[in-house]
């Protein structure tokens, strides 16, 4: 972590009681970037700034936003912008805070994106269970329309766009971008097979569609106001700017922190006094999930890795959706794995056999083990099922399915079994492991010296 002053790009108004109002938003510099863009910049120039910023998507896949925007085929209109506010990856908590406490920041980001890509309509898809976020956004949209900031001839210019608030009704899989589009078309939220079509070319109504996450878009006002270079000046390697991380679980001060991307380490956010402040009750760290339930687990030997997409990827896991879940020594690894797998089993959309059947069997076997009926053969059987869902148990996982949900269920199991085998043996009365496991984080071994700081 560097010592220089790091701007709060997406959390600047979180401490204000009225940060969600148009009045306070404008008083604190809001909509200045929109005005700058429509009065002094061409759409291509806005796009260039976002490219220069190297803004990585914050929804999970970490794809550069500027590059994705460039995939829309020229000359094909209308184009749509779909905002992914479905936040439901276990451990992930940040998009909802932006929508509740700073809805205009998101709206301004949406408008800038529409301006740059030439989208004539934007759909803001908010998770169904988030009633307050829906209320805050509805109010913010109504106020922004009344102020001439959205709609026809925005700020008196030739830029016209509608932002339509839409919301879901409870289904994790709808967060996957093609499922989100299906849902927005009024269908069951099941992912589309891709290739052949990617949303940028053929998405909503088979028209060019950019899907971006709430946090991703909320960075745009700052980038346009300060320039892409200033954003890229923060962070390191491929990970620029700042980023929100939710640190939950067995820590003294769980919270959502905006930190410099790429330079801050896991140790900083988990143990730093300004952040999660260490493990509760003076306990020892057992494991932590670095990027949401789909990510392979990390351990104390990973604490000094920077929160940098490339470095975390090279160590065999991912930063995913910025969700760090900390487990202390009192955690039952078998139970933790079961709970995460139950999530995937419940949320599988059912389209692909390896996911639908595989996650269901993994959950049943783990439940049986927890209920005291585990057998020695179960440990290998669990890995064998994992190997069927995602051959050779690598990371990133090989995909036998339409979307990555099924293969994600392999992470908690391979993590728990490879590191905490003895706990499985204690439940199952032993067991031999014959299925090869290849993911780097799964094979990580504890350091011989060095303990919990």
């Amino acid at each position, binding site marked *: 972590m560097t010592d220089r002053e790091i701007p709060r790009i997406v959390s600047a108004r979180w401490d204000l009681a009225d940060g969600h109002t148009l009045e306070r938003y404008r008083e604190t510099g809001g909509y200045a970037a929109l005005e700058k863009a429509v009065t002094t910049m061409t759409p291509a120039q806005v796009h260039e700034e976002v490219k220069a910023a190297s803004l990585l998507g914050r929804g999970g896949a970490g794809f550069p936003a500027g590059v994705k925007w460039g995939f829309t085929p020229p000359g094909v209109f209308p184009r749509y912008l779909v905002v992914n506010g479905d936040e439901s990856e276990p451990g992930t*908590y940040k998009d909802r805070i932006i929508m509740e406490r700073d809805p205009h920041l998101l709206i301004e980001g949406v408008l800038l994106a529409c301006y740059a890509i030439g989208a004539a309509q934007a759909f803001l898809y908010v998770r169904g269970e988030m009633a307050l976020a*829906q*209320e805050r956004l509805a109010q913010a949209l109504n106020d922004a329309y009344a102020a001439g900031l959205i709609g026809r001839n925005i700020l008196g210019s030739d830029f016209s766009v509608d932002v339509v608030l*839409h919301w879901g009704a409870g289904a*994790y899989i709808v967060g996957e971008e093609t499922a989100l589009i299906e849902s927005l078309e009024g269908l069951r939220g099941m992912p589309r097979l891709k290739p052949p079509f990617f949303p940028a070319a053929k998405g909503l109504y088979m028209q060019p569609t950019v899907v971006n996450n709430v946090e991703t878009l909320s960075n745009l006002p700052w980038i346009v106001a300060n320039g892409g270079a200033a954003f890229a000046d923060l962070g390191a390697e491929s990970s620029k700017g700042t980023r929100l991380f939710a640190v939950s679980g067995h820590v003294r001060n*769980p919270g959502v922190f905006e930190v410099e991307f790429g330079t801050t380490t896991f140790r900083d956010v988990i143990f730093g006094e300004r952040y999660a402040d260490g493990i509760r009750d003076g306990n020892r760290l057992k494991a932590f999930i670095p990027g949401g339930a789909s990510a392979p687990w990390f351990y104390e030997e990973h604490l000094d890795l920077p929160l940098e997409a490339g470095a975390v990827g090279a160590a065999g896991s991912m930063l995913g959706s910025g*969700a760090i879940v900390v487990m202390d020594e009192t955690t039952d690894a078998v139970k933790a794995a079961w709970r995460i797998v139950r999530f995937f089993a419940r949320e599988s959309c059912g389209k692909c056999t390896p996911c639908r059947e595989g996650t269901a069997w993994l959950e049943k076997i783990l439940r049986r083990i927890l209920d005291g009926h585990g057998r020695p053969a179960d440990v290998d059987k669990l890995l064998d099922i994992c190997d069927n869902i995602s051959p050779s148990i690598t990371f990133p996982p090989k995909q036998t399915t339409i979307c990555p949900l099924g293969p994600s269920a392999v992470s908690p199991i391979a993590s728990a079994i490879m590191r905490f085998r003895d706990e499985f043996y204690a439940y199952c009365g032993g067991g031999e492991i014959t299925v090869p496991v290849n993911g780097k984080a799964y094979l990580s071994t504890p350091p011989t010296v060095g303990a919990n700081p």
Partner: protein
Amino acid sequence: MARFTDENVAIAEEIIARYPRKRSALIPLLHLAQEQDGYVTEEAMEHIAELVGITPAEVLGTASFYEMFKREPVGEYLVNVCTNISCMLLGGEELLHHLENRLGIKAGETTPDGKFTLEDVECIAACTEAPCLQVNYRYFYRVTPERADQLVEDLRAGKLSHEVPRHGVLSRVRQVLPENRAGVAPPDRNVEPAWLARNETATEGDT
């Protein structure tokens, strides 16, 4: 009850008009039906089918995919306790069991007086505030067993009716698309948005 009231038909038509294709309004309309009746009735699904121009079976097909749409009456208060990983680590399961005992029902059931339905749910995006729950999708953070008891009492006594509307009422603020709306962009008309012409002008100017 069950088909949309005249007032809700007007709202429904306004919602439908926001989308390039009518069917996109399906989920918002199912929420509207649930807001009117507390759950989604068969008659409402038939009415939605008429409004959107698809079959009732297609409406059911979509509705049945999504967990929030209840096709049977549920309690006035739907209590969703998160037991996913961050909450599990800090007592989410124990909180659920405490409420099961307190209400005398299992997760998935409704109390005989129709006041409470209890559910064991997946992550609700409040992981740093574990263990947490929602009542009719309003959040309660860091809930201890004592706070849970108090919450049940307060809900029974109607003390929280301001913060927690009855089941079905989701957003109490509706978006209204006013006069200065840009208008729907129909997918079958290839028209370049006016402001993109600025790119051409700028390039010409540069050369």
